[in-house]
């Protein structure tokens, strides 16, 4: 952020309104500088850093099977009790979740489930568009969690995006990772 460079100009400065003029100069400079805001839903979208804790996803192994062993540690440690896990035994004799529901309306995105998971299955991703118009839609099931996007590589970048009203679950379609994304902070730090 740029700052005005007004020193104490004494009474001469006050008579000629140097402080007011400095303010005017600052706003004039701002007026002809680049805008710093994202044009979020329409043109671009901010992808958070990888450390961001957003919408959950469940990892799968190479055979396309979920990593989760339905140990229920995540649902035990969850401070707001938003994870429901019901285990069952599959054909191979492995313990797998039959039901894995997360109530996003209760979830506080603390990431404790991620820490507790012994099988490296549940992770918190970078998605943040979970708003919806009907509360039951906020309960996500196993297949949603498996289908949810994984960690994005280019965290901390602004990607081109497009608003698709009336689209499917997520109405903001983002371009593929790495496509023309840029570092937003570039503009902001410059003025200092």
């Amino acid at each position, binding site marked *: 952020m740029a700052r005005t460079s007004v020193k104490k100009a004494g009474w001469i400065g006050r008579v000629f309104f140097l402080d007011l003029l400095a303010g005017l100069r600052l706003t004039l400079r701002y007026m002809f500088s680049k805008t710093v805001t994202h*044009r979020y839903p*329409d043109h671009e979208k901010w992808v958070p850093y990888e450390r961001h804790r957003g919408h959950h996803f469940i990892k799968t192994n190479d055979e396309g099977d979920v990593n989760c062993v339905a140990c229920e540690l995540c649902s035990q440690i969850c401070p707001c009790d938003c994870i429901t896990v019901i285990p069952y035994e599959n054909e191979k004799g492995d313990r797998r979740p039959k039901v894995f529901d997360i109530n996003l309306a209760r979830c506080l995105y603390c990431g404790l489930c991620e820490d507790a998971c012994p099988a490296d299955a549940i992770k918190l991703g970078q998605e943040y568009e979970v708003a919806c118009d009907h509360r039951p839609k906020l309960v996500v099931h196993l297949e949603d969690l498996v289908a949810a996007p994984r960690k994005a590589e280019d965290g901390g970048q602004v990607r081109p995006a497009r608003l698709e009203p009336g689209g499917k679950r997520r109405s903001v379609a983002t371009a593929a990772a790495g496509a023309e994304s840029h570092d937003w902070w570039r503009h902001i730090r410059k003025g200092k």
Partner: protein
Amino acid sequence: MEYVLALLPMLVKMAIVVGVLLLLPLPLTWMERKIAAHIQQRPGPMRVGWHGLLQPLADALKLLTKEDHIPAEADRRLFAMAPVVALVPPFLVFTAIPFGEPVQVFGTEVTLMLSDMNVGLLFILAVSGIGVFGTILAGWASNSKYAVLGSLRSIAQMISYEIPMGFSVIGVVMLANSMNLSRIVAAQEDLWNVVVQPVGFFVFFIAGLAEAQRIPFDLPEAEGDLGAGYHTEYSGIRFSLFMLAEYLVVVMLAALNVLLFFGGWQGSPFFLPDTVWFLLKIGFFVWVFMWFRFTFPRYRYDQLMAIGWKVLLPLSLLNILVSGILML
């Protein structure tokens, strides 16, 4: 029949002026929002039309379809009257503002103003002075604390700033030997008044800002401490009438600044018609007012009164004295 023919140019001019004035707020709101946005380093409205150009239409549509709410304890007749009363003075002022030299249309000379008054300048000051009635009525009729406080403030502000505003133009009148606006413009052919009367311009500019109740002197509607001041209780189309009046006052003030101190349509570059040059100057001043609006915070009430009575009034009196001595 001859009567109608004689009235025809006048009617056409009136229709043009009224039509333009009614449509003027549309580009002005867009301009104001864009300037506000860019000063705050954001793009502003972008979604309706190209760069939000149709945003004012969307706003207008929204305002027109909103509920027209009248508070239960309000003085209903005055409440309905107030926005119209606020709208009358700005329209009246434009009857006396010239937009250029007389032009030849179909062999007859047509002046580019509605009425060429000898006392034009005084008329404009007087009529803009009664603009406060809309504010007073709105504040009183709403029967709300905030609204009444807003209109009390606006009364005190108007009375205090009318005096320096009136005094600051006396230097200009002395230079032009006339209160006729076309003659004041003609007198600036060689040198714009702002060079000869810098103090007068300074006082007029500040007092005009206060008279138009623009930021940093928008105490009557100070949304920080009074809700929305005198139009707290207004909504829908009545509120939009207040907005219309506010924009017209801004344009009027810009036009006055240009006419009195920046040579009106004088000194246009060779390729521009006088009137276009004049309108460009007005646009520049409108931009300056918006720039001021988004730069300065609001003054405190006692500071406002102190500036009016302790700074601007002595300055304007001194200006009259000095320019009188110099002219002798």
